[in-house]
């Protein structure tokens, strides 16, 4: 029955020699194996190895805690001396040992939010372009690479170009407007910063827009909507929170940006009066004055500025990442 059928399938194996091996070869191999088996040490055990891995993982956690507590402890002299008023006082006077963070908080918020607004004008169109109009193809790859390269340019080079290319333009503008022609200041810093943070919101925005389910888009199109209307009424509302998260993340980036801002913000420790005024951000005053800080209260105040920066950027970054994760974007 079945046996007969199998007999008719006969196949020529390419190699039959060696299957019926000679006894001596077999014995030789068996001897090798016995000797090998006897000498096979196990080396590192599984549980020890897993423990080592856990230690490596826990090391990261400890590192973060150490960073936070180092900042906190080093800020104690300032915290003890000024308390919560530190955040609202606008006197920054190393001579009289009086320190207040308010001018820098204003500078940071002003530059960051202005940069944010300017950058969104460009990053949202990029997200729509790459997410909807031109998702594939060499044009898309080119634009995507260019935007990603923007993120790769070192901050000091942005500052350098900002100082020598942008500041003169702003100075001319200020002269035309009859304002003090510093050239540097909040406006210049915000412009440079806005270019630097475009890639962050653009890439996340692009991802969430491309994740909008196509059946939603097709339904709207089949009802006679134009592409513009589909984007406005279907895609943007759907991807809205993801885009907001991307903007949030670029804000986090802007808040902590140091070198470019330091080089074009004008280094003034007073509350800026207008966008043409020089100022300082939390990051730039640290960069400018840390090496010259004499006295432990001075240094401790600068470190407390760093602590504020750490806490604020961490909160914003984690919020943004959490929203992005909820939208299901594979980072």
């Amino acid at each position, binding site marked *: 029955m079945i046996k007969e059928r199998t007999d008719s399938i006969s196949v020529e194996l390419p190699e039959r020699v060696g299957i019926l091996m000679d006894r001596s070869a077999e014995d030789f191999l068996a001897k090798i194996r016995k000797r090998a088996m006897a000498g096979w040490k*196990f*080396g*590192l*055990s*599984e549980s020890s*190895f897993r423990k*080592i*891995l*856990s230690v*490596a*993982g*826990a090391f990261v*956690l400890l*590192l*973060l805690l150490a*960073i936070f507590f180092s900042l906190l402890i*080093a800020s104690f002299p300032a915290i003890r001396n000024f308390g919560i008023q530190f955040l609202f006082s606008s006197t920054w006077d190393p001579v009289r040992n009086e320190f207040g963070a308010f001018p820098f908080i204003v500078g940071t918020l002003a530059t960051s939010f202005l940069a944010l607004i300017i950058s969104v*004008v*460009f990053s949202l*169109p*990029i997200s729509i*372009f*790459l997410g909807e*109009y031109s998702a594939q193809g060499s044009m898309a790859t080119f634009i995507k*690479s*260019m*935007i990603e*390269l*923007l993120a790769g*340019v*070192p*901050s*000091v*080079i*942005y500052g*350098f*170009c900002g*100082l*020598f290319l942008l500041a003169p333009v702003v100075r001319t503008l200020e002269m035309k407007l009859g304002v003090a022609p510093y050239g540097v200041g909040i406006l210049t810093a915000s412009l440079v910063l806005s270019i630097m943070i*475009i890639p962050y919101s653009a890439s996340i925005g692009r991802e969430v827009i491309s994740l909008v389910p196509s059946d939603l888009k097709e339904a709207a199109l089949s009802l006679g909507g*134009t*592409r*513009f*209307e589909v984007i406005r009424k279907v895609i943007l509302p759907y991807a809205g929170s993801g885009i907001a998260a991307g903007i949030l993340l670029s804000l986090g980036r802007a*808040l*902590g*940006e*140091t*070198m470019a801002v330091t080089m074009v913000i004008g280094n003034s420790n007073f509350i800026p009066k207008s966008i043409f005024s020089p100022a300082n951000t939390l*990051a730039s005053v640290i960069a400018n004055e*840390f*090496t010259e800080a004499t006295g432990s209260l001075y240094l401790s105040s*600068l*470190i407390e500025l760093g602590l504020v*920066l*750490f806490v604020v*950027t*961490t909160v914003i*970054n*984690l919020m943004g990442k959490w929203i992005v994760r909820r939208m299901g974007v594979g980072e």
Partner: protein
Amino acid sequence: MKEPSIRGRILWDKLFKALIVLLTFCSILPMFFILFFITSKGVSVINWRFLTHLPKPVGEIGGGISNAIIGTFMLIGIATVFSVPAGTLAGIFLSENRKGRLASLIRLCVETLQGIPSIVIGIIAYIWLVVSMGSFSALSGGLALGLMMLPVIITSTEETLKLIPESLREASLSLGVSYPRTILKVILPAGISGIMTGILLSIARVAGETAPLLFTAFGSPFMNLNILKPINSLPLMIFNYATSPYPEWHTLAWGASFILIVVVLGLNLFTKAATKKWKVQF
């Protein structure tokens, strides 16, 4: 009720698309500007003397950036020693523990570390090493850069190892190979090019960093090979020279910027291409 005309709606559609395209292309203009200006101002400065000589005091012609180039290499080397072993092991831990509360917590820590502003990292390296050693040093600068490289290495190692198919692990285990040896001699070698790419990516990230070095490595006009002493680096030098009042130094800074941007962008493009090529393997 007046319905918006079809022609009107199509017009808006076309205008919108034009606006989107315009703004998109405008946003890549800065890239071209930067590259153009740095190249035009920087290329002419570069010659053999520029690359091999030490900086000269103000007023003297000539001078080079050799100490900054060497310093950058040394700082990256120290940072790599700090970050690669710990980062790779932590990355292996995360890829071997997909679920689990400790692993999720650690992933959160990695994300947080990644987002810390670079100047704050500089403060930390200052507190930890500069204060205890009593002086600025290449070591503290390397620590700061290493702290910045760490999260990138952990994440890319984890992502790389997650891509390795389960069948490889099963093949090894079925031969009676122990778990540690399977990870170290089969899984890790299989992912080595992805891990190397991740390390290169993290180097690209820190090669251009200045803020964490301001009060750790601090900078120096001399050539220094001693890791316990202050050391110069390309970005530091660019910062110092660009913000100085001397035009000769500005010129040097343009030349240094050209080198820096070519190296950093080159690394970025290379790692992107390498990542794409590597991902196809599996």
